[in-house]
C-alpha cells in the first residue's frame, strides 16, 4: 500500500516541477486588474461617459489631488469624529443597560421590555422626529448614530450575560465567590465574546448611519463631499467617497479583531494558533 503510494508520487512530482506555477496572489489580482483596464479603455474610447462614471485614471488623479490639498483629510476627520462620538455614547448606553437588566431580575423587568420595543424601530425612521426635536444640527446626527448602535450592543451583551454556562456559576458558588467576585471573575469575562459580536454590529450600523446623516445639512464630512459631488456631477469624487467608506470599515474591523485577540486570548480558536 505504502509502496504504491510512493510510486504514484514519483510519477507525479517531475511533471509538477517542470511546469511553472503562477502564485495564487498574482492570480487573485488578475481579474480586478483586467476589469480596471477594460474600464479605463472604455472610458478613453468614450463608451462610458464621465457623468455615468469617471475613468479609473481620473479617479486616481483626483484622489491624489485631494490628499495633497488636505481636503480629504479634513472631511475624513470630521466623519471619523462623528462616528466614534456616536458609537462611544451608543456603546456606553448599551453596555450600561445590558448590565442593569442582565445582572438583576428587577432591572430586567424594568428595562428589557422597553428596550425590546424600541429596538424594532429602524433608527433611520426616526429622522423626521429627530429633526423636529433637535433641528438639523450636529445633535441630530450624533443622536441617530447613538440610537443605531445602542441596541446591538445591548441585545448581545444581555444575551451573553444570561447565557453563561450555569455549571460555571455553580462551580463559582462552591468556590465561595461573593456576588461582586462572581460578576467580575465569571459573568463579565464570560459575556465578553458576545459583547464583541454586538460591537461589530454597532460599528457596521454607525457607518451606515453616518452615510445617511451626512446627507442632511452638512458642511463637512465624507457624506457632505459625496452630496456636493453629486450636485456638480463629479462621479470621480463620489467613487472616492465610496472607497473611503469601505477602507475605513475594513480598518475599524481590523482594530476590533486586534482587540479581540487580546481580550479573548483564552478562546480555543486563538489559543490553538
Amino acid at each position, binding site marked *: 500500500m505504502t509502496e504504491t503510494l510512493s510510486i504514484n508520487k514519483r510519477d507525479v512530482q517531475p511533471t509538477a516541477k517542470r511546469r511553472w506555477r503562477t502564485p495564487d496572489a498574482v492570480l487573485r489580482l488578475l481579474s480586478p486588474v483586467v476589469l480596471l483596464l477594460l474600464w479605463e479603455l472604455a472610458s478613453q474610447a468614450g463608451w462610458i461617459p464621465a457623468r455615468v462614471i469617471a475613468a479609473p485614471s481620473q479617479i486616481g488623479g483626483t484622489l491624489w489631488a485631494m490628499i495633497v490639498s488636505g481636503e480629504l483629510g479634513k472631511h475624513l476627520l470630521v466623519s471619523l469624529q462623528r462616528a466614534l462620538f456616536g458609537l462611544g455614547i451608543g456603546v456606553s448606553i448599551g453596555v450600561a443597560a445590558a448590565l442593569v437588566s442582565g445582572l438583576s431580575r428587577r432591572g430586567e423587568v424594568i428595562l428589557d421590555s422597553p428596550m425590546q420595543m424600541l429596538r424594532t424601530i429602524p433608527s433611520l425612521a426616526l429622522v423626521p422626529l429627530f429633526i423636529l426635536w433637535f433641528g438639523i444640527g450636529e445633535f441630530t446626527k450624533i443622536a441617530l448614530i447613538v440610537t443605531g448602535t445602542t441596541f446591538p450592543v445591548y441585545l448581545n451583551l444581555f444575551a451573553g450575560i444570561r447565557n453563561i454556562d450555569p*455549571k*460555571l456559576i455553580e462551580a*463559582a458558588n462552591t468556590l465561595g465567590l461573593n456576588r461582586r467576585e462572581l460578576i467580575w*471573575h465569571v459573568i463579565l469575562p464570560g459575556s465578553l465574546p458576545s459583547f464583541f459580536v454586538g460591537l461589530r454590529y454597532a460599528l457596521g450600523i454607525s457607518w451606515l448611519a453616518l452615510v445617511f446623516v451626512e446627507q442632511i445639512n452638512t458642511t463637512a464630512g465624507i457624506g457632505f463631499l459625496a452630496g456636493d459631488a453629486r450636485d456638480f456631477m463629479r462621479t470621480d469624487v463620489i467613487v472616492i467617497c465610496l472607497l473611503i467608506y469601505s477602507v475605513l470599515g475594513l480598518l475599524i474591523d481590523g482594530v476590533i479583531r486586534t482587540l479581540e485577540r487580546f481580550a479573548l486570548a*483564552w*478562546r480555543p480558536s486563538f*489559543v*490553538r494558533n
Partner: protein
Amino acid sequence: MPHLEAPVQLRNVVRQFGQQRVIDGLDLDIAPGEFVALLGASGSGKTTLLRSLAGLDSIDSGQLRVPKARAAVFQEPRLMPWKRAWKNVVLGLHVADAKARAVQALTEVGLAHRLDAYPATLSGGEAQRVALARGLVREPKLLLLDEPFAALDALTRIKMHRLIIELWRKHTPAVLLVTHDVDEAILLADRVIVLENGKIAEQLTIDLPRARDPGQAGFQAIRSRLLGLLGVEVSAPTVGLAQATLRRFAHA
C-alpha cells in the same frame, strides 16, 4: 481522647420535587477522613444528595450538617476558560500568597509545568487535575466528587485513582464519591453506600487492604454483592488465572 465529631451529619433528610421524594428520610454520618462511595441507579437521588451537601440545593426537611470548608469536583472540570490554570486554582481564595499556593497545589497533581495554560489547551485528564487542585487548595474537611472520572479514558482513570488516594492520604479530608462504577467504588472507598429511592438500601465497609486491585481475594465477592443490590445478576465470582496473573493495580 478528643472527641472527633463527624463532619457530615444527616438526620431524616427529605428533598422532594413536586410529589416525588428524591431523598426520603436519609440518615448518614461521615467520619473525619473517611472515604465514602455512593452507588445507585440513575434517579436514586445520589446527585441530589451531593448537591445538597455542596450547598447547591436546599433540603425540604430534616437536619443537614456539613463543614464550611468543603469543595466539589464534578464530572466536567468546570474551569473558567478565561483564566489560566493557576488563576483557576485560587479563584475565590482570599490569601496573600495565592500564587505560591496555586503552584504548590498544581505541583501536587503533577501540573507544575502547566501553570499558565488556558483550560482550552489542557487535555481532559489535565483539566480534571486542575479541578482537583482547585478543590484541595482550600484544605476542605469534606471533598465531594461527582463522577469525576466518568469522562476520562481508561488509562487516565487508573492514574487518577492513584492520584486521588495519594492526595486523600496527604490532606485527609472526608470524601464522598458519587459513581456508577462498582469497581471504582470498591477500589477507593472505606465504605460503599447503595442508594435506592432516596434511602440507603445497603452499606458495606470495605476492609480490603490497600493498594487494592480487582484480583485481590474478596474483591469479586463484594463486587457481585454490590451488583446484585444494583439489580445486575452476576454468576458466581470466578477469579480466573488470567485475572490473577494480569493484575491491574489501581493504586500504589
